[in-house]
């Protein structure tokens, strides 16, 4: 390689390492020199293993320090904060997960929820609102500056903002401006001697509430996620694919009940849901179990057979239900008349008879109970098909009707823990300084400083402008 070309490469290497990788400048110079020497001056070819190995090691160190160590240095100082929300509620954020939720994080990790769900609310752009305040003396100049700004940036409705500017009070100059326009506005206004205040707002589909005006809005969080949110996550399961919705704030969106249902059968929530069922997190509930945690799931058809009523054949007197009825458990379905009482009751005393009947009843749970002449429903469900009508004679074991019955599940400990963890994910409820929910204007905050006068107008402008758009993105 010629010396000239290798010098250019060296220059490239050093400028890249200084400007892009942000290396300390002597290191950048050494990198450039090394590249120059390696490529050209010493005429070291790529033929010796030593050259190759040296170059590889150098690049490896640059790569590790430029990407990993530098980020690690910057993020190592992250801590929780003690602050209060707009409602005045004090909170400490973030805090380590406690108890069950901590175990739930392990369940989330083990089952690879991050394969389909992200945990990062992103913003797509930053917009800036600019406010200005003028004193009596410079009102005209500031108004002139505002009209000039609107003219330069090609905005039509400028006169209102310029003319409506009250003396000694903050007035909006422009809303939703991009960084370039906002800095122009700031420049014009500061030149006219006004106090300037800039509000930074993050925008994006994740942050926009879903409604008629914003059909693309997702409402996944009121603020974007930042590194501080994941201080205690082990590890942060940020995810890279959204086959399902983002979960960074799922705890603020859904209740325990809904989350359980989604885990058991996502199609309950939305028909075209692509999420697989997680039945392995649940177990079938006993029929007697009537706890609140029971979830009715997948509808199955069940044949309801006539149980052994003690007679060979019985005649149906009346059918109490029709197709499509929703009936509760224990409600009568049909009335029967015992035609021939050939009940083969063992020769036992009363107690033993009732015990025998109880046993029979338990053995044949799915059979229709016979209470007196009324046959009652063993399940809660919807009548799908009636196989008998009044006047029929039926035997024990005959099909009476077909019912739609929901399978009943109850969550295991794993499911409870997982849902506890999901409910703990509500980062949007905790605004952070670098990710505010609604960044207030600095001027609207209580300030000890008196109202700015034209003389020191530029000083508060500097103070108010501490959040610059490019810094805010960090």
């Amino acid at each position, binding site marked *: 390689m010629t010396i000239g070309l290798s010098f250019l490469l060296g220059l490239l290497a050093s400028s890249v390492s200084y400007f892009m990788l942000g290396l300390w400048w002597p290191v950048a110079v050494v990198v450039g020199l090394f590249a120059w020497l390696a490529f050209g001056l010493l005429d070291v070819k790529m033929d010796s*293993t030593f050259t190759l190995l040296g170059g590889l090691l150098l690049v490896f160190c*640059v790569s590790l320090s430029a990407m990993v160590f530098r980020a690690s240095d910057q993020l190592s100082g992250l801590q929780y904060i003690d602050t209060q929300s707009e409602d005045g509620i004090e909170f400490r954020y973030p805090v380590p997960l406690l108890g069950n939720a901590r175990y739930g994080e392990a369940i989330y990790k*083990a*089952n690879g929820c*991050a394969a389909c769900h992200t945990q990062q609310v992103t913003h797509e752009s930053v917009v800036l609102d600019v406010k200005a305040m003028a004193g009596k003396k410079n009102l005209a100049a500031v108004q002139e500056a505002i009209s000039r700004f609107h003219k330069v940036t090609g905005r039509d409705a400028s006169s209102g903002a310029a003319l409506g500017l009250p003396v000694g009070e903050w007035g909006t100059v422009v809303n939703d401006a991009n960084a370039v326009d906002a800095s122009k506005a700031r420049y014009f206004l500061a030149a006219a001697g006004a106090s300037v205040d800039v509000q930074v707002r993050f925008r994006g589909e994740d942050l926009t509430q879903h409604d008629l005006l914003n059909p693309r809005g997702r409402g996944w969080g009121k603020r974007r996620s930042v590194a501080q949110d994941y201080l205690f996550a082990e590890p942060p399961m940020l995810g890279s694919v959204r086959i399902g919705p983002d979960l960074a704030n799922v705890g603020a969106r859904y209740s325990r009940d809904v989350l359980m249902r989604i885990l058991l059968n996502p199609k309950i929530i939305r028909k075209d849901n692509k999420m697989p069922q997680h039945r392995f997190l649940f177990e079938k509930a006993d029929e007697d179990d009537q706890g609140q945690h029971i979830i009715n799931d997948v509808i199955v058809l069940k044949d309801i057979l006539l149980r052994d009523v003690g007679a060979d054949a019985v005649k149906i007197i009346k059918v109490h239900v029709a197709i499509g009825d929703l009936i509760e458990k224990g409600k009568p379905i049909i009335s029967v008349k015992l035609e021939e009482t050939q009940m083969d009751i063992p020769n036992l005393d009363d107690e033993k008879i009732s015990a025998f009947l109880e046993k029979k009843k338990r053995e044949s749970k799915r059979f229709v109970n016979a209470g007196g002449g009324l046959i009652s429903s063993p399940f809660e469900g919807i009548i799908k098909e009636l196989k008998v009508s009044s006047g029929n004679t039926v035997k024990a074991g005959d099909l009476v009707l077909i019912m739609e019955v929901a399978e009943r599940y109850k969550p295991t400990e794993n499911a409870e823990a997982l849902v506890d963890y999901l409910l703990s994910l509500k980062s949007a409820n905790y605004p952070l300084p670098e990710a505010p929910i609604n960044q207030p204007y600095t001027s609207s905050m209580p300030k000890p400083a008196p109202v700015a006068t034209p003389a020191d107008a530029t000083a508060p402008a500097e103070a108010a402008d501490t959040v610059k758009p490019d810094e805010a993105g960090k």
Partner: protein
Amino acid sequence: MSSEPKEDKAKMDPREAVDRSCRGPVLFLAFSAVAWLLVYSLFALLAGVKVHASGMMADSAWLAYGRIQPASQLALQFGFLVQLGLAVSAWILSHRGKTVLVDGGYLIFGGMLWNAGVTLGFLGILAGNASGLEGLQMPGKVLPLLFFGFVLVGLSLVQTNNRRTNEEMSPAQWFLFAATLWLPWVLGGSYLLIHFFHAKGVVANIVDWWFIQNFAKVYLTFVGLGTLFHFLSALSGRQLVGRGHAQLAFWLLLLFGSVGGVSPGAPVPAWLPALSTVTAVFYFFGVIAAWVSLSRTVNGASAANDEDSLAYNLMRLAALVFISASVLNVFFAFPGPGSTAEFTTYGPAMELLFNLGFVGLTLIAALYHIFPRLAGMDFSPRMTGIQTVAIVFGLFGATLPSALGGLMSGDAVLGSGFYFASLGDVFLFVGSLILFLNFLRAILFAMKNCDCLAGFCGKANTKEANA
């Protein structure tokens, strides 16, 4: 053959001696790789089906989508690509260096360790011991096993390269040599940072992205390009044109491939995504340089031997996939288009296209060329034809619909891309099943019909390597 007198051996084609030294180790690695490809395609198919039939296999935690999908990725990347890459690297480095493979036993032993590591990682993910990270999904405990397995294989490869007959190294050798060194460094570094020093919070993710970037943009790319640099010139019977371009490509790809890979909206300091965009652009210059050199070498030539035309054309297809995937990557590295594609199925689809379409196809094509020379027995031509067509169809069927579907759907809502992608998965499965059977059949026939595979146990060839 080992019974023949030594004088005959000296007269033999030196290439045959090299092949004999490679036989056991390379075929062992290649066979395990092909088996892992079969495992990958089966689990990718299962994962796809789970998206359509949400109630299927819902009672088994082992078969949750979130477990079989990462497990299949592990089988593809660490089981198939790395092992076949090592096998092909071993063959190319010894042939380019005109020297026998040094210490082939290390290759077999290291390969066994590596296979054990991948198997444990695979089962670990299925059993619910995943690390929760995207790139290094396997449980942290298997990483040392993988590391030592690779280092053992690497020892043999580096020694082989050092004993090359020509002092001058060709581009293929640079790329393969660098790749062999790079993966253990990156793997070891990530292991130490994540599992030993316990990187806190998003730093763990940054280390993980660093690993993903280095694995794909440096390791896999270098293995693929090294193989292409060797075979495109060897199979077309031409000299490699543009050594300077290759050199420029090497350093640009290395420097800029090793940094970046952070998505535009990630909750990390903003300079990381910005840096990733910048490196992606510079990386593309390296891609162009490599492309110029390769295309000037090939320049419309066809394979010198008819029997190599399948391998040669597959490699040209793989090179085409490489350049198109790179063009798309640099376009979507910019924040505007990038945020459209971010979080959609476009990302995984392009990753699969790169992994299987560029690196995988290149290595499979190389295997077609290498296998008959090592086993003394060719693949069945008809099965080879079917499997190649099935794999290529499956590859594009599995990637293009979900890439397009991802771009059209935006985040969160999926179109029908998934259904077509599953059709592609079926093709891939059929292709890899036939490839596996084909391999097995050829090996069994070769073992039965001649003694050329006596060294498959790994004993005979170490003796020859010492001789």
